């Protein structure tokens, strides 16, 4: 108790609370801008901690990192673009809620869940202090492999009524995850001589393309975020808060998933979110909104889990000095800057600092959620702002956010390419989430398999945790399959059947190419890609045969998918590609200003002086975030500019 009071006494000093507030503000801003994320934020803030004492330093850093997954909900719900990779699962139901005039409700539920999840995670961290070390050492690579296999079965849930498409999308994602140097031998796999690809396809760029661009294209043709033009639902925020409180069991169970799995190095935030989301989808009462169409539980579960994860991931960092992610590695650097050595001494001589860290996380979550709730009334008004205003601005930030990843022309090329893939998958009802899950879990499946077999041989299959997880996996798949069979006949007919056949044919060709090229790799480097591409080839060819020879009903025109919309959405990639070329030719400022003015003039409805002001404000934000706060060297524009 003395330790807690000492920590509290140290933390509530005004200068340290100010640091916490600064961290929270920085985190909220960074979370809103798609593509940048926690690494960017910590890189920005760590140098400032050199001159601070440990209490102030960790108040600043943890204040920032604790609330990233609170504010990343804003673009996820409003425009369907995840602010960080931790908000991808939130897009699934959060964005459909915004379309249905329920943005306020989605925000209310999300922030309340985030706050409870964050505080709950901090409590778990506090409670785990005495058992931190055995907790971290409890799971080995065999167990992680079993968790990965379990994670892959979530595809069955994310695929909905299209299991074959889900499986194909997941296999495609897994194959995409194998691009780069293989983890065993360092052999190049589908890198085409590009050093850029040695570390694999960049996650942030791929997800911005796959999820962000299609949603922006769809929003553009919808006209505004809300489908109807009625005013934002009155009392929506309060309703969302009540939803989260009513679903307290879901909030706590998702927070438990977040904090416990967060403590296991190697399991990223994306898989944690999807596990929480999938768990939420297991319950659907009659009359409930289907998942993926705006069910509030689909927002509550991932938002609770991703805020709780932050505390969980601190456990191995504090207990053993072993960072589970790049973000934690940076935080570990901050420990050494402060002269703190992670390990048992954190629990004895540095215990007040550790407790102050836990309090910082809890306070930051409360502050972050409180601030966001206070802003929500204004944010929901964005749902009625015309898409012709919002979309060009969002595209600029998505493009700059993607380009800042490696500042390479390939950042933009992949953004556009995966944007195209996303639009095609979205319109043909191929589950993008299944692709995302495969992309994240595929490399883990390969690496953990090799490590497990090298360290434990086949005896890993006799480990109690492995047996339990695999049994749970089988149970979940069987249960899902039964549910699917019960609902057979409710599946929607295929939209754009000919395009679907063409797309499937393209995938089959790609799979065969991958199979042939993977077979030429050394065994260790090629075995997983070969098996995956073999399965993909078999499935796509079988599905193609089904599409061609078993006639499927063409979908009549409907308001949600009018004929011609698909082509128009693809055409929207042209201005996005134009922006990319402008950025390369003239630099980010001229490109952003030129793009916003050109789009405004093309789409009409805004006077030139107002367009110029809007463009200059965007350029100013880019300058502050990407040049002033974190100075960096940008590639020289091809023609002129800066």
């Amino acid at each position: 108790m003395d330790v807690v009071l000492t920590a509290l006494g140290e933390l509530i000093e005004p200068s340290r609370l100010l640091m916490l507030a600064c961290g929270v503000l920085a985190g909220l801003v960074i979370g809103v801008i798609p593509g940048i994320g926690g690494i960017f934020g910590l890189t920005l803030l760590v140098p400032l901690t050199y001159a601070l004492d440990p209490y102030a330093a960790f108040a600043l850093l943890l204040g920032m990192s604790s609330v990233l997954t609170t504010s990343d909900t804003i673009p996820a719900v409003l425009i369907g673009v995840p602010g960080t990779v931790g908000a991808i699962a939130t897009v699934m139901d959060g964005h459909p809620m915004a379309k249905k005039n329920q943005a306020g409700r989605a925000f209310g539920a999300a922030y309340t869940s985030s706050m409870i999840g964050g505080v709950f995670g901090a409590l778990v961290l506090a409670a785990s202090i005495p058992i931190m070390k055995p907790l971290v050492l409890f799971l080995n690579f065999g167990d992680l492999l079993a968790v990965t296999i379990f994670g892959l079965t979530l595809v069955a849930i994310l695929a909905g009524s299209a299991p074959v498409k889900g499986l194909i999308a997941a296999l495609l994602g897994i194959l995409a995850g194998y691009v780069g140097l293989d983890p065993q031998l360092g052999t190049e796999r589908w890198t085409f001589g590009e050093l850029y690809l040695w570390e694999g396809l960049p996650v942030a760029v791929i997800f911005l393309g796959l999820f962000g661009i299609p949603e922006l294209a769809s929003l553009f043709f919808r006209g505004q975020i809300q489908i109807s033009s009625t005013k934002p639902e009155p009392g929506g925020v309060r309703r969302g808060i009540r939803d989260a409180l009513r679903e307290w069991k879901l909030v706590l169970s998702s927070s438990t998933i977040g904090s416990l799995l967060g403590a296991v190095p190697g399991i990223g935030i994306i898989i944690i979110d999807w596990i929480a989301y999938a768990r939420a989808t297991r319950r659907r009462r009659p009359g409930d909104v289907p998942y993926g169409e705006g069910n509030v539980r689909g927002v509550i579960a991932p938002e609770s889990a991703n805020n709780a994860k932050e505390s969980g991931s601190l456990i191995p960092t504090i207990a053993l000095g072993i960072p589970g992610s790049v973000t934690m590695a940076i935080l570990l650097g901050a420990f050494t800057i402060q002269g703190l050595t992670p390990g048992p001494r954190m629990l004895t001589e540095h215990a007040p600092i550790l407790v102050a860290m836990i309090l910082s996380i809890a306070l930051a979550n409360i502050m972050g959620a409180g601030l966001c709730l206070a802003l929500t009334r204004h944010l929901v008004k964005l749902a009625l702002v015309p898409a012709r205003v919002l979309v060009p601005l969002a595209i600029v930030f998505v493009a700059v956010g993607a380009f800042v990843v490696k500042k390479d022309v390939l950042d933009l090329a992949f953004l556009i390419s995966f944007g195209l893939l996303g639009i095609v998958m979205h319109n043909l009802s191929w589950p993008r989430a299944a692709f995302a899950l495969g992309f994240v879990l595929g490399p883990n499946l390969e690496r953990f398999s090799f490590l497990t077999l090298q360290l434990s041989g086949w005896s890993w299959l006799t480990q109690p945790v492995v047996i339990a997880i695999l049994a749970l996996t089988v149970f979940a798949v069987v249960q899902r399959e039964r549910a699917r069979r019960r609902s057979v006949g409710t599946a929607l007919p295929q939209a754009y059947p000919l395009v679907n056949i063409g797309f499937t044919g393209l995938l089959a060709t790609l799979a065969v190419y991958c199979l042939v090229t993977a077979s030429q790799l050394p065994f260790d480097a090629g075995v997983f890609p070969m098996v995956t591409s073999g399965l993909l080839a078999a499935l796509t060819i079988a599905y193609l045969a089904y599409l061609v020879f078993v006639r499927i009903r063409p979908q009549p025109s409907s308001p949600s998918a009018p004929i011609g919309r698909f082509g128009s959405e693809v055409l929207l990639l042209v201005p996005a590609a134009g922006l990319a070329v402008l950025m390369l030719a003239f630099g980010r400022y001229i490109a952003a200003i030129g793009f916003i003015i050109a789009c405004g003039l093309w789409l009409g409805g805004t006077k030139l002086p107002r367009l110029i002001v809007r463009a200059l404000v965007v350029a100013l934000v880019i300058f502050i975030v990407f040049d002033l706060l974190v100075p960096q060297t940008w590639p020289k524009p091809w023609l002129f500019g800066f």
Partner: protein
Amino acid sequence: MTFRTAASLALAVVVLSTPTAAFDANRVSIQVGFPPGASYDLLARSAGNQLGQYLPGNPQIIVENVDGAGGLRLLNLYLQTGPRDGSAVIMISPSVPLDRVLAPETTTYDPQRFQYILTFGNAPTYCVTTAASGLDTFDKLITTPGVVMASVGTSSTFYAAVAIERIFGADFNIVTGFRGVAEVNLSLARGEAHAFCGISSSEFERMRAAFDMHVVAELAPERFGLIEGAEFILDRVQDPTTREALALIFFSNRVRFPVVAHPDTPPETVTILRDAFLAAATDPAFVEDMDRLGIEISVTPGAEVQALVDQLYQTDPAIQAAARALIQ
């Protein structure tokens, strides 16, 4: 004061405050080939805090992480498009100078052409074992069958493990595929792996704070003898060719944390950068930061590094071939 006097004074101020022609950058970028949070990154940021005051015109110093492919992405980008005026320098892997010796077929760059500014480190790495494994001596490490030896991909940790296995006929089960030292530490702590070779003293200290470890061997081209009980590995090798080949493999420990300028940087600019970096590396504030971070600093000036690298490439080809054979 007449207008003419005022104008002359103003001109004099401008001339005096203008950086020398050999170096006129307003901003200098230290580009690091590794991710934020790594010891490279922390070191670069600390050095960057001091560097500006020692360069003409006191330019702004920024540190950027251009990670990927173990630093090779940065190296290749820099060689292709990096500025030649000293406004950007890079921190690369210490194994880069050795690449043309150990992997001549796949190395496209010439490490002898680089303009070495300085290296911040000259320290051994170590072979460590977990206390739980009972392998408390180097002898036990190489004679106990089935030792699980962790290594990170095909990095220097893998080379060290393979070379020791070949030279001493050890029966290691070398496990590759760990993503980084953090994952290796976790595996050692869990008892899945027993040993790890090629770890720095700062990493080792961090690891030892969390669980009990033994240091059984010191890996370096020359003996340091900083940790009691750690056998100097070259003392165990009798054959002169093998001994020299092993020393060659551990050359990277001699040139840790290298800072490099573009090969086409003018010599006078290189001299300015070398002097400034040397001053920053001995600045008390930097030294204090390094003490706090537990990063051992032992600076080698750029000209000396250049000479060491030249010397490396004059090694007897038979020894170079023996080194390649040891790690293949």
